[in-house]
């Protein structure tokens, strides 16, 4: 089990000197990739914050082989890499097995990349796809995505006089991935490094397609202070906005159940992107948000009981 002490003995996949925003929690999981497993890995990134900030020519923060080709196709690009890894194993039985990891933000995963992701999973490549979900297109300056929560203000869903941020609830990509009947689907959060590291390890090491959705708060996008990412992610889990769970060969396990579920407003109102919801005229949006969360949490807990 990858405890912090054990991880600390191993080399990181992701070097210092990258140029992500101060306080961006994405490196929490990228630093872990090689610390949780003994396999050699190859990483592919979708266009996005992580890709841009980790590879400004002539510098690269990647201590492992890494490729980026475009925004919508991390899963497809890594399908090719994975196929080639299989060719290598076929030709040389002694070659060390290489595991493939694709990484995209919610823009490159929920939206523009969902076709390539869905197909790669359906084809059964030995590939872990990690989505770091920060709830908008942060790389291009905070435009709404399919993962943007109800009521959040983004530059394309601003909080105006008559419209209060995004008018639709977010899509549940993790559930969509479960419907692919792949071996492993999980949600994790950057605030819980032990749970996170175990899930990355499982996803990398199993033979076949796996999907991991990581909640990763965005300092400028959520309009929080640079030291708040971990706390904000923790609140998302405590309010059950972002349940930590895994679906292992179809069986649901909820990894964390808060003793007392906190109201979603505790999470929403600590973020600038939801600040407008404090206005009494939008109070009903908070209620709507709360009932969505309650409904989805109940559904999830019921799935676990079924198993």
């Amino acid at each position: 089990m990858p405890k912090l002490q054990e991880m600390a003995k191993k080399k990181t996949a992701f070097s210092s000197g990258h140029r992500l925003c101060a306080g961006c929690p994405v490196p929490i999981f990228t630093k872990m990739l090689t610390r949780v497993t003994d396999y050699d890995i190859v990483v592919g990134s979708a266009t996005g914050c992580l890709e841009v900030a980790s590879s400004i020519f002539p510098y690269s923060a990647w201590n492992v082989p890494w490729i980026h080709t475009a925004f919508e196709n991390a899963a497809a690009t890594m399908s090719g890499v994975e196929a080639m890894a299989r060719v290598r194993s076929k030709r040389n039985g002694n070659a060390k097995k290489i595991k493939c990891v694709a990484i995209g933000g919610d823009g490159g995963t929920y939206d523009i990349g969902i076709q390539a992701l869905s197909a790669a999973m359906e084809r059964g490549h030995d590939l872990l796809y990690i989505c770091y979900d920060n709830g908008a297109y942060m790389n291009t300056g905070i435009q709404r995505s399919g993962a943007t929560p109800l009521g959040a203000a983004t530059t394309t869903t601003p909080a105006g006089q008559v419209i209060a941020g995004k008018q639709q609830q977010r899509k549940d990509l993790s559930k969509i991935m479960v419907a692919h009947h792949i071996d492993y689907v999980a949600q994790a959060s950057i605030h819980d490094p032990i749970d996170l590291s175990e899930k990355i390890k499982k996803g990398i090491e199993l033979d076949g397609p796996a999907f991991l959705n990581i909640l990763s708060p965005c300092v400028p996008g959520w309009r929080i202070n640079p030291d708040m990412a971990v706390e904000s992610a923790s609140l998302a889990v405590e309010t059950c906005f972002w349940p930590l769970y895994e679906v292992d060969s179809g069986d649901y396990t909820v990894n964390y159940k808060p003793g007392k579920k906190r109201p979603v407003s505790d999470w929403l109102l600590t973020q600038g992107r939801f600040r407008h919801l404090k206005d009494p005229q939008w109070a009903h949006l908070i209620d709507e948000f709360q009932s969505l969360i309650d409904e989805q949490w109940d559904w999830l807990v019921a799935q676990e009981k079924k198993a």
Partner: protein
Amino acid sequence: MSEKYGLKNWQELALGGVITDGGNAADYETGTWRTWRPLWRQESCINCLRCWVFCPEGAFVLKDGKTPAGKDRKEIKQIDYYYCRGCGLCVRECPVNKKGKKKAIEFVREET
């Protein structure tokens, strides 16, 4: 121009824009972004490694050490200010700091 900036001519670049020495971002200094500075206090540190695992910059440098019971462990050695951007995540997430009596990581303004 190339001489002034130390940039390479097209003939000297690897084919296809590939970066052949992955991880060379470690040469790049991000410490210049910092306006606040975390100060790590060894005497108060409990070596839980939470600052190390959360630090986005990987700025917490480790060294080999022993637990009070004499078992091998990794310990915090220092903060590498070449990388530290001063986001304050370590300060906020330090469990010693959270208890509130004394601080294992203090946060101070950089001098102008």
